[in-house]
């Protein structure tokens, strides 16, 4: 009888031990936040568009535009250009913030052009219009530069597309992504493409990351 009781107790203990899951907490030290160079690949890397691609692309575009005599006419009045994401279409499979490309490009170009090109803030058109209306209603005085002038029309506007091709190796899980990004400057009225440039990026990795 005692043997049976001991056996039953041992069995019950074994079942209980087997049912309880030992949870091991990995007590590893975390890594403090550190700054990284946005122009170089970071610690978190995947096959999508990343900071180094944006930096490299916009830097190359700005330099190429400033070297184009059709856009930057030497000895002529500076052309008026609109650089925004209004006509930049994302046809890729990635979730891309198009503004990150156009905003960086416009900022770099505006600073580097130094008057050789003039940039129109169509993305702030509402702000400009609101102040004009207040001036017309005589709610505010004209600025120190005199009465408000009429907003300017553009000579060239940026358009383009972001496209991609994806492939996955089912056996190994390796992924590859090819991005083709096209930028064009279109002449007002004629629709002539006065400048265009393409950027191609092909990346492959086994472990991909999540892009947001």
């Amino acid at each position, binding site marked *: 009888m005692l043997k049976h009781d001991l056996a039953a107790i041992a069995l019950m203990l074994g079942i209980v031990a087997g049912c309880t899951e030992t949870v091991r907490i990995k007590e590893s030290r975390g890594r403090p936040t550190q700054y990284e160079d946005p122009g170089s690949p970071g610690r978190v890397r995947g096959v999508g568009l990343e900071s*180094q691609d944006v930096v490299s692309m916009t830097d190359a575009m700005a330099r190429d535009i*400033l*070297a184009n005599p059709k856009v930057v006419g030497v000895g002529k009045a500076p052309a008026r250009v609109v650089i925004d994401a209004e006509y930049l279409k994302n046809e890729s499979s990635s979730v891309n913030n198009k503004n990150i490309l156009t905003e960086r490009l416009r900022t770099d170009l505006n600073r*580097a*052009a130094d008057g050789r090109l003039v940039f129109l803030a169509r993305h702030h058109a509402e702000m400009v219009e609101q102040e004009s209306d207040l001036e017309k209603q005589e709610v505010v005085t004209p600025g120190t530069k005199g009465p408000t002038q009429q907003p300017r029309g553009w000579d060239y506007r940026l358009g383009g597309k972001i496209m991609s091709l994806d492939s996955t190796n089912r056996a190994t899980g390796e992924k590859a992504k090819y991005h083709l990004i096209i930028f064009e400057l279109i002449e007002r009225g004629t629709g002539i493409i006065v400048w265009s440039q393409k950027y191609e990026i092909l990346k492959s990795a086994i472990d991909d990351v999540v892009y947001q």
Partner: protein
Amino acid sequence: MPRKLLLIALVGILGSSVGCTVDVPEGAGPAVRVNDPRAPQAGIRYDSVVVLDKSLENWNGKVYDPAFAEYIWPNKGRMSRIAVEATNSRRTPTDTLEVWAVLRNRTDQPIQLEGRTHFFDADKTPAEGPTAWKRVFLPAQSVATYRELSTQVRGIGHYYIEIREGR
């Protein structure tokens, strides 16, 4: 005893005089320029191309020698994987400066490189920030050109191209 005292006094005088001449390491130290004949590669060599990564410069790999139909180590331990065949600059139609470097892959393996350029004015003052890293693909035994443009016009007098292995 007097000799011992004399010796102790002498040691004390020497010690205090040495202590008076030793610099006290307090405050921020000055940043110095390396100007040592034993370090000929230190400094900036204007209007030239430099290779940043030692892994590109000191390569222990084999190259195929067609004369002997075998793989050999031409300069074991001190061979560069790439060669800079030419570098130069010229003005674009809009007066910005275009610089380029023709690179050659000396190995039988494809290499990915990145290049960037610093632009200086005629007085060797930095004229604009370094350009973004631009990727250059070099298939085995092939050549490729790294090309870059300045944004400024007349203010550019010198350039300095840096090449590193693609990250």
